[in-house]
């Protein structure tokens, strides 16, 4: 309800504004017309009708004095005036009172005038208007200067001038004051008309005052009024400029012309007023449009509309078809224009002698045609240019999307707008997907960290108390064995939690890789040394076969160490007692190949695929130590370093083959044939020099970053 009212409010305000302005306009027009035509004056004796009535009376009096009128009495007006006419030959010709001469009557009238009985008195003696007094503007009395302030009545001079006898005419005339007027005659009707006019004017004045008040109120509510005007401008703006401008000029001219016509009473006042109001409001509305829209007022024209129409007609076609059609249309139009030009030229050539006027017209048409043709060309080239610019923008934008540097969506007008829109959609889709993935990855890592923390904390207590229990001498004795089992299992649980954490991190890709040049042979030596006691425990011998003494790879040392540790641990765990584990390092194309071979102590009834799955164990009973994640972790880590882990099963022979990409310097020299292993003694010195590791060792600071 409230919103409805609010919506309607600008309309209501504008309605009041419209009514108020219209009333003021009409009132001003009516009052102006009445004033200009003398129908309205503050004093009724200034009105045209009073003046003409008095004129008539005076003429009649003159006629009476000349003896041209019959009867010797003024029949019609006699009741509202006192008069006495002396004939040209002397003697009273006619009177409606008892005075004996004009002089006497004039004196009587003057006295009466002083007492307010008469409004207007005249003394006409010997053909000249001698005295004239009239009550003006509510004053009790005032004497007028005959020459300036009260012009002589039209016709008196003429009468006096034309006739020789006129100079002998004398009369006195007094017009009754308003209170004494009788309801008859021209004087009364002049007064009555004035009286009615006055009432109308008062009414109009009141209306105008009211309108003014309303106008003030609407002006106070200028925001609402402004909104109304905006809405009007929106509406009017749909019209073409070609319509608005001429009609605006027409309305301005029509307004002025009609006002003049109405004032001079050339047209009926009702029709004139309607026209004036109409013209005024049309000017106002178009002016509003002009003020609100400014430049846009002019851009809404037939040309742009035609362009728009063409564009909507084109929009159904695919891009290429659209471009082709546009080119075709342009070419056809140009051809037609050129043809028409040629035709006109022919017409001019052949018709110039015979019809000069026709030639002029044709020349004019030619100029217009040429202008249209050139304009079309310019338009086409401009559009082509703009399309090229837009194409460049779209191109750059696509590049930016690819590089992930695109920020704001691309907004284009014209033929490339749909393409830009599509790219925007793709971009926002991509960024949304990326954002979601990043968020889910973060959540995953957080989850892993939290779960691992939540598992480790109770595990700490379990391990500590199991250890404390293990230190006690429990009764009965076998309880000590129980505690030992607890100790073993909690240790295993600890390892599993750590492995689980690691593999989850590796698989979620959220792991810090520290890739560097390193010697894979040295790494294996180190691993073997670190696992010293373990390999000693098992009744298994480890045989190493290094094809080269040094083999540089580009990998993360810690991760690769973990891989070898796991694979070696695996081999030690499952190798048959008394057999040998073969560990070999070779160079194969761009890869370093490290293989672990052992003979399994049990039947391997699983595939190579299954064994690297998470939680897969060689022995289904899961009796041995370990988390079952060893191979899965090794595979993940090798893959993180850009290598691969393959498992091969051949009867009881278990082969794990790690492939890691070679370091840069080795890649360069890899074209040379491999050094045979037998020559190691003599080759030692030169290989040391070319070894990238030796070069790396010199700046000690470089290595502080490694750990």
């Amino acid at each position, binding site marked *: 309800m409230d919103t409805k009212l609010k919506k309607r409010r600008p309309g209501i305000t504008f309605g009041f504004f419209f009514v108020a302005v219209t009333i003021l306009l009409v009132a001003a027009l009516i009052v102006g017309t009445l004033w200009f035509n003398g129908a309205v004056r503050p004093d009724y004796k200034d009105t045209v009708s009073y003046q003409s009535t008095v004129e008539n009376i005076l003429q009649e009096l003159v006629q009476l004095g000349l003896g041209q009128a019959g009867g010797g009495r003024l029949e019609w007006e006699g009741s509202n005036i006192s008069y006495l006419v002396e004939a040209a030959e002397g003697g009273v010709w006619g009177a409606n009172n008892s005075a004996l001469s004009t002089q006497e009557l004039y004196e009587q009238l003057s006295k009466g005038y002083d007492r307010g009985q008469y409004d207007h008195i005249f003394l006409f003696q010997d053909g000249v208007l001698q005295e004239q007094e009239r009550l003006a503007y509510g004053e009790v009395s005032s004497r007028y200067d005959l020459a300036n302030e009260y012009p002589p009545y039209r016709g008196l001079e003429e009468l006096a001038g034309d006739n020789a006898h006129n100079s002998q005419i004398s009369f006195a005339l007094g017009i009754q004051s308003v209170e004494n007027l009788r309801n008859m005659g021209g004087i009364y009707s002049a007064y009555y008309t004035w009286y009615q006019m006055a009432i109308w004017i008062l009414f109009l004045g009141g209306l105008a005052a009211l309108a003014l008040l309303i106008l003030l109120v609407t002006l106070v509510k200028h925001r609402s009024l402004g909104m109304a005007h905006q809405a009007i401008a929106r509406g009017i703006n749909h019209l073409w400029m070609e319509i608005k401008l001429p009609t605006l000029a027409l309305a301005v001219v029509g307004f002025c012309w009609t006002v003049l016509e109405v004032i001079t009473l050339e047209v009926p006042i009702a029709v004139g007023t309607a026209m004036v109001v109409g013209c005024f409001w049309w000017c106002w509305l178009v002016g509003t449009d002009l003020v609100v829209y400014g430049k846009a007022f002019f851009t809404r024209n037939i040309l742009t509309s035609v362009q728009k129409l063409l564009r909507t007609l084109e929009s159904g076609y695919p891009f290429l078809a659209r471009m082709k059609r546009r080119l075709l249309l342009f070419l056809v139009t140009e051809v037609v224009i050129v043809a028409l030009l040629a035709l006109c030229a022919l017409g001019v050539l052949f018709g110039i002698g015979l019809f000069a006027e026709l030639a002029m017209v044709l020349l004019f048409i030619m100029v217009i045609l040429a202008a249209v043709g050139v304009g079309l060309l310019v338009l086409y080239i401009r559009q082509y240019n703009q399309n090229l610019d837009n194409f460049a923008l779209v191109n750059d934008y696509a590049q930016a999307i690819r590089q992930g540097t695109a920020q704001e969506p691309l907004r284009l007008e014209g033929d490339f707008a749909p393409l830009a829109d599509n790219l925007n959609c793709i971009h926002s889709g991509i960024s949304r997907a990326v954002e979601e993935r990043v968020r889910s990855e973060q959540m995953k890592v957080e989850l892993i960290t939290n779960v691992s*923390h939540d598992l*480790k*904390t109770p595990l700490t207590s379990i391990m500590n108390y199991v250890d*404390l229990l293990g230190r006690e001498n429990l009764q009965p004795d076998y309880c000590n064995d129980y505690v030992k089992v607890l100790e073993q299992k909690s240790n295993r649980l600890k390892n599993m939690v750590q492995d689980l954490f690691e593999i989850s991190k590796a698989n979620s890709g959220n792991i810090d890789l520290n890739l560097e040049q390193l010697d894979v*042979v040295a790494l294996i*030596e180190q691993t073997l*040394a670190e696992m010293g006691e373990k390999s000693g425990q098992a009744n298994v011998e480890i045989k190493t076969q290094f094809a080269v003494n040094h083999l540089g790879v580009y990998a993360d040392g810690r991760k690769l160490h973990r891989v070898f540790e796991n694979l070696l641990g695996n081999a030690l765990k499952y190798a048959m007692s008394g057999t040998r584990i073969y560990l070999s390092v070779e160079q194969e194309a761009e890869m370093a190949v490290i293989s672990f071979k052992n003979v399994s102590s049990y039947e391997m009834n699983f595939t190579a695929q299954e064994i690297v799955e998470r939680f897969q164990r060689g022995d289904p009973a899961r009796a041995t130590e370990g988390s079952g994640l060893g191979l899965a972790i090794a595979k993940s880590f090798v893959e993180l370093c850009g290598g691969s882990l393959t498992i091969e099963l051949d009867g009881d022979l278990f082969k794990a083959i790690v492939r890691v990409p070679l370091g840069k310097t080795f890649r360069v020299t890899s074209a040379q044939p491999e050094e045979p292993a037998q020559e190691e003694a003599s080759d030692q010195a030169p290989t040391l020099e070319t070894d990238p590791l030796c070069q790396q060792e010199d700046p000690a600071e470089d*290595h502080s970053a490694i750990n």
Partner: protein
Amino acid sequence: MSERYHVLVVDDDREIVESIAIYLSRENLEIYRAYDGLQALDILEGNAIHLILLDVMMPRLDGIKTMLKIREQNNIPIILVSAKSEDTDKIFGLEFGADDYITKPFNPLELIARVKSQLRRYFTLGTAVDAGGTSEVLRCGGLELDIHQKRLTVDGEEVKLTPIEYKILELLMRNQGRVFSISEIYERVWNEPSFAPENTVAVHIRRIREKIEINPKEPKYLKVVWGIGYKIEKA
């Protein structure tokens, strides 16, 4: 030890605090318990504490913030005990002023060893700074290698080394922070050119680590640079 050292154990898990307390009180240490950072700060205010075992993830005030508060006025050893086992977590903790970092779940014996090591270093060795001016002593953290007497002490306790082990350690300690490849170590210690990759060097290094490190798996001094060589971390 003439007097009992006072150790403050801070962890939001009461059982862990209790188990640590049991282990440490067997080592003749006086135990104070706190279950969050604010409690720890309170206890620290009213008591003379010599060492703090501090959990990182705790309610109210976490371990790192507590440590920063303590470090504003106190210089006693702080060992962080946390389930966060990432390298970045350890580096972060040590950078912010911890003296050591132990990850949960821990080996109780290792914990005891680390606590005792810190106490020894802080109270018995802290003041005795290089009294003998004539003897050349190489130092790295708690490691002290006397070149003249050919003696090695770790946190004040003498460690027996074989001549080869001694030579390797001297080489590494003279060049702290520098990484030596296996063949380089071999050439400089054995004084003969290395032809094949020498497994012996790696084995010797492991033995040295077992002697000088509390937890050889997570070495503090003698570090393995995988695939490159070995180095002694610059203290």
